[in-house]
């Protein structure tokens, strides 16, 4: 197995991009990443996407994007793992380069959600859950997370306001990211007064529906430092994934994200690091409850104490805090174009490790982690990256 590095990154702004089609989003991010990598060629393209068939009425994305990026002829196809599709495509790209099969691979996460209307989007997002025994009952994806949040608040005696700091931190960081969907800070008061979607989850607990595309270009580490690209290469120290049951009701313990535990433990071993070594963590804050549960499953907090990282408006998870989280706004403020999210997270870790994060730069960032969660925790993919 060879070490793999990221030699180029690209991203579109995230938002309701009425003027951009699915293919143009992918094209823009691919072209930006190839330029950043200093190349015009690649051996393969792997696309992470969840809902193009449902929401943009288009499948067969690999060939479509390869053609529109001027790469007609190369190997290209789509990888799907619900909201973890982006990181899943990166896992495949990583395997292709690490194995020695290819020397230059493009990984593109993309989602076009705003061509469809609200109830269709809500129904489409529920495809991540168990159709026959969750979705058929009328439960939405938000409500599944609400069931977890309510139980968490009950078991650990935590009030809803205790989660506010995750949202406040994400929006504070979104304000400094030119590609973020939401660029205005919020207060704990904004959080408390937000409209309810599925009790106890309100609008400020949830990430928004949006469009976006993000791309990384991969190469073997020993070929990565030839000075072609515009930034220093960033090495992938770990790339791991694990699974759990699709349905929450089938879990051994609904409040423990077993797949997040398994994939992060594998990642720590593969990278030879511990949670204490991590300088910043792009976690999957699709809902504020997911932030708390991820921190517990990945070893940053004991059971029931993940929410304590949100204390004092998220002071300890801020850019200059003990453990910076969602440093470019996270899913909450940068936005959550579902199949693209996993690649956005990794692109943002690369920005931090290259020292290109602007006003959101984490000082002396050497080691970053990104974790992408599919469904309510059924697929969890973890990447650990290091500055060269």
């Amino acid at each position, binding site marked *: 197995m060879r070490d793999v590095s990221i030699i180029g990154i690209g991203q579109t702004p995230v938002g309701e991009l009425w003027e951009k089609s699915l293919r143009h989003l992918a094209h823009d991010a691919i072209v930006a990443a190839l330029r950043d990598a200093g190349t015009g060629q690649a051996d393969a393209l792997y696309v992470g996407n969840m809902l193009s068939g449902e929401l943009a009425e288009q499948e067969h994305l690999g060939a479509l994007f390869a053609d529109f990026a001027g790469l007609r002829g190369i190997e290209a196809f789509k990888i799907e793992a619900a909201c973890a599709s982006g990181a899943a495509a990166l896992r495949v790209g990583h395997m292709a380069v690490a194995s020695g099969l290819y020397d230059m691979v493009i990984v593109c996460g993309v989602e076009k959600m705003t061509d469809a209307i609200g109830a*269709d989007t809500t129904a489409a997002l529920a495809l991540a859950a168990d159709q*026959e025994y969750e979705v058929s009952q*009328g439960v*939405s994806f938000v409500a*599944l997370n609400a*069931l977890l949040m309510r139980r968490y608040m009950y078991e650990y005696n935590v009030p809803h306001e205790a989660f506010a700091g995750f949202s406040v931190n994400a929006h504070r960081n979104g304000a400094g990211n030119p590609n973020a969907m939401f660029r205005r800070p919020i207060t704990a008061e904004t959080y408390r007064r937000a409209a309810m979607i*599925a009790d106890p989850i309100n609008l400020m607990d949830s990430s928004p529906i949006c469009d976006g595309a993000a791309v990384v270009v991969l190469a073997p580490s020993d070929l990565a430092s030839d000075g072609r690209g515009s930034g220093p290469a960033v090495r992938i120290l770990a790339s791991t994934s694990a699974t759990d049951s699709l349905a929450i009701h089938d879990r051994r313990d609904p409040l423990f994200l077993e797949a997040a535990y398994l994939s992060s433990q594998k990642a720590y071993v593969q990278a030879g690091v511990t949670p204490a070594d991590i300088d910043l963590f792009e976690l999957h804050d699709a809902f504020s409850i997911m932030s708390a549960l991820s921190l517990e499953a990945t070893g940053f907090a004991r059971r029931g104490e993940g929410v304590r990282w949100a204390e004092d408006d998220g002071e300890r998870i801020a850019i200059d805090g003990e453990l910076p989280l969602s440093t470019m706004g996270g899913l909450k403020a940068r936005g959550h174009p579902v199949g693209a999210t996993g690649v956005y997270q990794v692109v943002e870790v690369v920005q931090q490790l290259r020292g290109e994060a602007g006003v959101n730069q984490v000082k002396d960032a050497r080691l970053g982690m990104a974790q992408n969660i599919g469904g309510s925790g059924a697929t969890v993919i973890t990447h650990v990256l290091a500055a060269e």
Partner: protein
Amino acid sequence: MRIARNWRTRQQRYSLVGEVCTECGNKIFPPRDVCPHCTGPAQLPYTLSGRGEVYSYSTMYSAPKGFEEYLPYTVALVQLKEGPMLTAQLTDVDADEVRIGMPVEMVTRKIREDGEAGQILYGYKFRSVLA
């Protein structure tokens, strides 16, 4: 709605027919033929009592397509007394009266219908019972 799929799951939706593992004795719902506790074969049908308690709940103010007309409604994770947990709507109860730990029992209710000429789907919901 998918007619064949709804027909396939009729025993589960109407009567909570699950399975029992012949290796470890755990009751399983929904049926899956391989025991999630010991990975032994679990193909022996077992009908659950439909009695249990609320493990968690949420009142929804935004619904997936096909359920908008029922808003707001309350969904729950119900821990059945035989062990398995399932996801279902609560019925015949005010949202603000629902509590974690509240004893509930299964009833058969309309889940949704596909317009005036479409299929009507029936299945399980749970209602409060006196302990």
